[in-house]
């Protein structure tokens, strides 16, 4: 029995070292990922290399009354889930550029808008900002849920009911927090979907988010270890409960799902091309302050 276990352990080590060939952990800074190896095509639905797999879909849904876009992402290492500010320097900068520009700078296989860190208005003025391992603003908006992503790429949602100010937000379960977001609300926390009443309560959303209105919305979710889901709806929008139901439709076992900035900020970029609202009257690409992106770590030529 012991021999079998030892053989299995060695086999596991070999497999993991083979996986890592040509791949490396991306640094905890504002640099980008490895260049992706294919060019965008409108019919290209999957990008895959030894370190990342991104599968994207567009679903016109009668059930939810909207068209939604989603991407399922699997990465080899947590460092491939990354964030970037618009000026490449500071997450509290007043600079704003469209998601597509930032995505191209860092070779993002898939990029989405973040939580609009530098929106100094309403209850977004003092949100907690920790990105790529660096603490930019150590204040919190008490009414908004927090999303913490640890060094292993696991999501932890800290509900607004907790004492967010007193809480240590730089480590969670003994692990270092590398990215934190404060927009919300959380649609699903630890596998439990939020109820309609809670989601529709305006005080749980940033000012102007209008949870009951048909707005474009961007959701990020963790569906497994190093497996993620990003979902957004088309320009005619959806309410927050509808977005929760869409997430559950795509990933019924989703553990944590969190609302990011929406409206015209909603942008999903795949291989350097915006893929939401294509051929629909969705307005111009809004300039935003930050993005979340998934990059390849495959630097092999």
């Amino acid at each position: 029995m012991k021999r079998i276990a030892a053989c299995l352990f060695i086999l596991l080590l070999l497999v993991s070292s083979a996986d890592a060939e040509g791949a490396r952990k991306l640094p905890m800074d504002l640099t980008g990922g490895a260049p992706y190896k294919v060019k965008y095509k409108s019919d290209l639905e999957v990008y895959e290399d030894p370190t990342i797999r991104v599968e994207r879909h567009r679903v016109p849904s009668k059930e939810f009354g909207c068209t939604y876009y989603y991407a399922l992402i699997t990465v080899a290492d947590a460092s491939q889930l990354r964030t970037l500010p618009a000026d490449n320097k500071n997450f509290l900068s007043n600079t704003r550029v469209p998601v597509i520009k930032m995505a191209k700078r860092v070779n993002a296989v898939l990029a989405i808008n973040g939580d609009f860190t530098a929106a100094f208005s309403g209850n977004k003025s003092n949100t907690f900002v920790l990105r790529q391992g660096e603490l930019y603003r150590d204040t919190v908006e008490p009414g908004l849920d927090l999303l913490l992503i640890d060094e292993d790429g696991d999501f932890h949602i800290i509900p607004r009911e907790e004492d967010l100010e007193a809480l240590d937000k730089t480590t969670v379960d003994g692990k270092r927090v590398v990215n934190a977001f404060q927009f919300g609300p959380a649609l699903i926390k630890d596998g439990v979907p939020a109820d309609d009443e809670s989601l529709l309560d305006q005080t749980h959303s940033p000012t102007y988010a209008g949870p009951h209105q048909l707005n474009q919305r961007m959701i990020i979710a963790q569906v497994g270890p190093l497996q993620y889901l990003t979902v957004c709806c088309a320009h005619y929008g959806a309410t927050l409960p509808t977005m929760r139901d869409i997430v559950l439709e795509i990933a019924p076992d989703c553990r944590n799902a969190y609302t990011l900035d929406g409206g015209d900020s909603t942008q999903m970029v795949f291989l350097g091309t915006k893929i939401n609202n294509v051929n629909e009257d969705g307005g111009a690409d809004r300039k935003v302050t930050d993005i979340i992106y998934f990059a390849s770590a495959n630097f092999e030529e």
Partner: protein
Amino acid sequence: MENNMTAYSWMMAGGVAGCAALAYAGARKRPGASAGKAAALTALEILLGFVFAALCAAAALLLIRFRNVEAVGFEKFFSGLTLEDVPFFGAVAGFTLGVYLAGKCMKLPGTDTLNRFAAAGAFLIAAARFAEGFLGLFGTGELPEDTVLPFPLAVAIDFSGDGSYVEYYLAVFMFEGIAALAAMVFALRKNAEPDTFLRTLFIICLTQVFFESLRTTSIAWLFVKVEQLACFLYVEAVLLRYGLKGKGQKNRFLPAIAGLVVCGLIVAEEFALDKTNLPHWLIYTCMAAELALLGYLEHKAHLRMVAAAGEKSGA
């Protein structure tokens, strides 16, 4: 894409030196002004100008980011600021106050001191704007994807560090600098006539309403660009002043009313830039035409006011 602070500092130092030279020349033109007195006034103008510019910029930022200051604390908030956090309108208002007070300290009429300083102030603004070219994306504007334009229309910003990935951005800082230089030429030509300072700043603010819209980096409250709003308030105040001072004149409030209409149109245009697919060149053409109209109306109102003043003194 690091900031070149050495080049920025040299450019600003050159700006201050040029500003001092122009201020001295302006002060020397005052009847009976000795070289020593003109030099003392210039030094005081620059000193108080910078002190009050810093104070007023800080006060303006305090108003804009009050909730942050409240949460973070005064000391921590101000120690974490960068150059891009400095509200330009606050600094200009403070510098103006400093120059006014310098005149008063030297027992000179404040408005006359300002009129003689107008060209120097415009030069300093021009230098500050040109210097933004050393601060990465700070003084630039968005260009449509894959648009390549040469300097001075645009700048190439290298995000890769080795030239393998560059993005082109509109060199808004150059346009702002050139507009400030044009205002300086205007001020020099007016030779410290009454209202020279007021009108020089009017030119700078009127053009800044347009340029602020182009900038990628701008202090914003939600979707309102604070600098744009402040500049427009100044423009409207100047136009309203013509109405208030032109008692008995026909259509004396027309420029001020036109200002309000243009304000509404610019709000709609900013909304269109953010929310619609209308071509940006079309929106910006309309915006430029509306602001040019306000410039024309201000000029006409000024001529009317001068003519009325001439008639009054003739009578």
